[in-house]
């Protein structure tokens, strides 16, 4: 009986140690972030740690690639202790708590078109820029969008309160959530990938109509 108790106590001890933020940091992050190979995490705050860990951006498969959305391998408790440890490294921004339901959809679309659509495309389907792949925003939570706007991951510019206020950010998030279930007034969305494929489809339909008309015109009249 005492043997089993000792075993249990040892297990609990190991478990608490493993979920300890500093230990996790040492195991998964320090290899890059404590050397000059990756940015220092002093002063980035809970905001950045929460974003990069919950989106699966970190840990990176290897240095020098664009961080992509991936399956999160940490448990919720592990993320919480890691975020707590990174936040304790220096004064930094806390995790934001956006209220998209208080934003305005039409203002959000306007702001999204001004600030975001150049890269992420107006229906938030993602796109291409030179040197990077702006991701689609279909899987991001409201908190992750708010964090990304303030951090500017990879080569995305960051937007301060001066450029996009918290109220405007609420509207932008509300619009992004709308793009996941838009009411397609035209009836046929053609993948929401913009006017070029829509124009192409129109051309194909028009081409078919033109061919039919041509055939009709050139039909031979048999007496």
């Amino acid at each position: 009986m005492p043997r089993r108790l000792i075993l249990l106590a040892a297990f609990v001890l190991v478990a608490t140690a493993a979920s300890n933020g500093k230990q996790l940091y040492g195991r998964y992050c320090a290899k890059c972030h404590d050397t000059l190979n990756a940015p220092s995490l002093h002063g980035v705050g809970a905001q950045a740690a929460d974003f990069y860990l919950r989106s699966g951006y970190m840990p990176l498969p290897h240095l020098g690639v664009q961080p992509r959305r991936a399956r999160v391998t940490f448990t919720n408790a592990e993320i919480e202790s890691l975020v707590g440890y990174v936040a304790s490294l220096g004064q930094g921004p806390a995790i934001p708590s956006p209220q998209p339901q208080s934003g305005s959809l039409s203002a959000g679309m306007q702001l999204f078109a001004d600030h975001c659509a150049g890269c992420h495309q107006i229906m938030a389907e993602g796109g291409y820029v030179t040197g990077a792949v702006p991701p689609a925003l279909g899987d991001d939570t409201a908190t992750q969008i708010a964090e990304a706007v303030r951090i500017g991951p990879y080569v995305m510019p960051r937007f301060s309160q001066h450029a996009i206020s918290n109220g405007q950010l609420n509207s932008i998030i509300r619009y992004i959530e709308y793009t996941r279930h838009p009411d397609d007034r035209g009836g046929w969305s053609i993948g929401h990938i913009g006017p070029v494929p829509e124009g192409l489809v129109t051309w194909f339909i028009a081409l078919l109509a033109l061919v039919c008309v041509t055939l009709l015109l050139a039909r031979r009249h048999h007496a």
Partner: protein
Amino acid sequence: MIRVRDVLISAALLLLGRRRPSIPVEEDPGDPRAELVVAGLLGLTTCAAIGFIVAYALDPSTQLLGLSLGLAFIFLAAALVVTAHRLVVNEELEDDYPPEEHTAEQEEVVQLVEEPGERLTRRRLLKLGVLGAGGTLGLALATPVLSLGHFLDTKAYLVTPWRRGRRLVDENGRPWRASDIEERTFYTAFPEGGDNEEIAAPVVLVRLKPGDLRLPATLRGYDAGGIVAYSKICTHAGCAISLYRTPLFDRADPTPALVCPCHYSTFDPASGGTVTFGPAGRALPMLPIEVDARGHLRAKGNFDGPVGPSWWGVRIWRPER
């Protein structure tokens, strides 16, 4: 050799034979009503084409332009359909083509070719209609060339609202302070008291680390302590430069770049707006700026090059100082 001679002779006969119808053709009464319809349709084509030119001159809205030009083509097509069905003789030749030597038969072919023309009794009217429709439609199609802008006198494009001492303000007219401009993000500025719609008005402001700037000798002193200002209008097709690629970690990520979303022309803000990728043919015009005593950003002069898309005449001139 003999073949060549035969071909030459038959060609000569073909040409000469056109002048005089050797065999008198039986006069056909034709179809006067159809001819009138064709003439009328050609008249309508002319009207629609003139309508396009008038619409272009007065109110170039896409809907009106499309409607008038579309109608012109529809009328023209209708005229051609009526001509084909009612005015052109349809005859089926069942014989094989005769060998080239038989020039007499060849003349018969010539006559067959000429015959449909003989049936147009109101030839002049139709000729006039075709000339009118063709001429006005051609003119209508050529009119939009005017939209390409000034061809020789491009001086108008070199006038910009930027002068020494003019403050840089945001879209609401609030002056930008040097302390407002942070790294890793970008801002749009306009000349104070100017017209924001002018092509040379908007500039994009970014802050780089002063040590990262690699401005050429001709642009030395254009930056204000690491803050640089470039025209926001792409030098390729005139779109607004609305993308700023800015690395979070500059040791590994791509370098900062101003990118135009239209065709991905990419400019390096650290080296004076030089083109690093894409179709743009010349660097972004750079605006010299300074910080005044109250911390506001002011222009130190005009751009170092012409603003806006490139065409001939634009590259050789410099904006007024």
